[in-house]
């Protein structure tokens, strides 16, 4: 086990410990986009069959609907966002170098929401939601982890 000991020398012991406890996923499902309402970011709320034994439809729907709301808010044109856009435009878009756009703030909010959902709802059921932003806003990837039978 030369490789392992070498790694232990190079890195902190915590890394080794983390790796030892790394669960191996047993599958993944992908929640596709729902384009029925146009181009805005919206995901399908139908619970995939592969995980219907782990989580119920209502809980899953709540998560996806909330996520859709956050992304919908990012793209909606409200007066405040319109003014912000106009102001940024008038500066020749130089203001974008300093401030984050409204959309970016919403993406961060969605990431925080997914994290909290993972911690509270999905991880105890052996599921992990991957932020769709990391998949190009194409799919919500759900990683199915083996559940602790012990």
């Amino acid at each position: 086990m030369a490789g392992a000991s070498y790694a232990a020398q190079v890195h902190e012991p915590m890394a080794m410990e983390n790796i030892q406890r790394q669960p191996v996923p047993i599958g993944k499902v992908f929640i596709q986009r729902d384009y029925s309402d146009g181009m805005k970011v919206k995901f399908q709320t139908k619970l995939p069959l592969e995980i219907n034994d782990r989580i119920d439809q209502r809980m899953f729907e709540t998560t996806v609907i909330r996520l859709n709301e956050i992304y919908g808010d990012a793209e909606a044109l409200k007066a405040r966002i319109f003014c912000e856009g106009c102001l940024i435009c008038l500066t020749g878009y130089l203001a974008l170098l300093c401030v984050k756009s409204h959309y970016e703030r919403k993406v961060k909010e969605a990431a925080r929401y997914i994290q909290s959902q993972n911690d509270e709802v999905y991880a105890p059921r052996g599921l992990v939601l991957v932020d769709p932003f990391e998949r190009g806003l194409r799919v919500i990837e759900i990683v199915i982890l083996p559940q602790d039978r012990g």
Partner: protein
Amino acid sequence: MLSPQTNISAPRPTDSPSSSRYAALDNGANMAKRKWQVLPGRNSFYCDGRIMMARQKGVFYLTLGLIVVTCTLFFAFDCPFLAGRLSVAIPIVGALITIFCLSTLLRTSFSDPGVLPRATPDEAADIERQMEVPNPDNPTYRPPPRIKEVTINGQTVKLKYCFTCKIFRPPRASHCSLCDNCVEQFDHHCPWVGNCVGKRNYRFFYLFIVSTCFLAIYVFACNITTIVLLSNEEGGFLEALKRKPARYPLPFNFTPIASIIEALICFISIWSVLGLAGFHTYLVASSQTTNEDIKGTWSSKRSQATFNPYSHGSVISNCCMAICGSLAPSLIDRRGFVVPSDPAVVTSSPTRPLHSYGTAAPTNTVNFSDSEDSNSRLSSSSDSDHHDNKGGLSVTMTSNLTDQSTDPSPFTVANDTMGQRSTSAVTSNGKVLHLGPVNSVHPSPTTPRETQPLLRSEVTMGDGDKQGQTVSPLGAGEGGDSLQGMSNWGLVKLSSV
């Protein structure tokens, strides 16, 4: 409370792997690479990933040169003349328009047009599984283009499958053959700005051509004014040329010559830019892309029932959304660090219930888990606070392998955070198979089905797949023996290191 480890490579709980080079360091010899260095596609990157352009930039330099030369001549010759005789506002307005024009040009050229990241191996495998199986007897068989129909606001739209990116393109997205990327809301590839024009930079492009129109008209008007005023003062154009101004050490008055040069440039460019600005104003107002307009996708001539499902209702709202709507952040994280993630994992087969895969973690050489602990306990680590990392979960597929499709040299695969070298096995057809980090020496017996998809996915990613070869669906009958053989090969490689 159990919470899955979100990134096993982060040694400190407070570090965000995407921002911490330490998290992605290998044995210390090389600094971690940024994601732009491994992105597929034919883009050029500068300033450590901050600037993204197409490869061919010659015409962009011409555009930039023309604007810079014209404006330099304008501010050097026309502005002092006119500021003294008419108003000091003339150079100020000129400067504002010039700055706006250059700013929007550089924004258009340097920003991500809305490139869609390619599918991760798992995603691609999931899509492939839903398609029909290619004929295994004919290796060159390519299935016909896949179409998925969706209904958007009442209109049926066909989504095409992109063989290069291995995704079903979202509506309005298109694959740019020059940049080799799928781009959201693809308008066209513009050589004048040296980049694609898509969802994220369309407003900059539109404002650039509009401001160029204004700039050209403004400078042209100033040139005519300068020539007329100068000729009147000196009693003729030729006399005006002979006058020697004290400002510049030239044997003759260059101001009228400069004005003429500028006027010529403006006159020639105004015709094309004005037409383009008018055309794109129409596109913005009707919420269409150049592609859609040229093909007449939403033209009412097609049928009475055809309407544009992407329109926001009125011209005003279309214009507002296009120009003042909130700008989406880039989907490709160029400046994040490449974090070696886990090797390929089993993807769920629709024909097999998941519980039949069992819970024991496979501990053969293709797997990252430690062979001493073959229990698959969920990690109760508290390192779950860096979800804003751009590297993704460590439990995910080797998405980095996807990014390396053009460059199989495994700098990430080879140097994982454990400081180990991954093994590469050369398969019989010469392709390099990345087996992932080799940790255990003893490959434990595993079910062939469990590890077979692992290998298949990795094979696909490792061979610089640009021809869109499809992966055979999982579950085809390849024995576990060949797998064990490859695992042993990995063993041999390790021992020789």
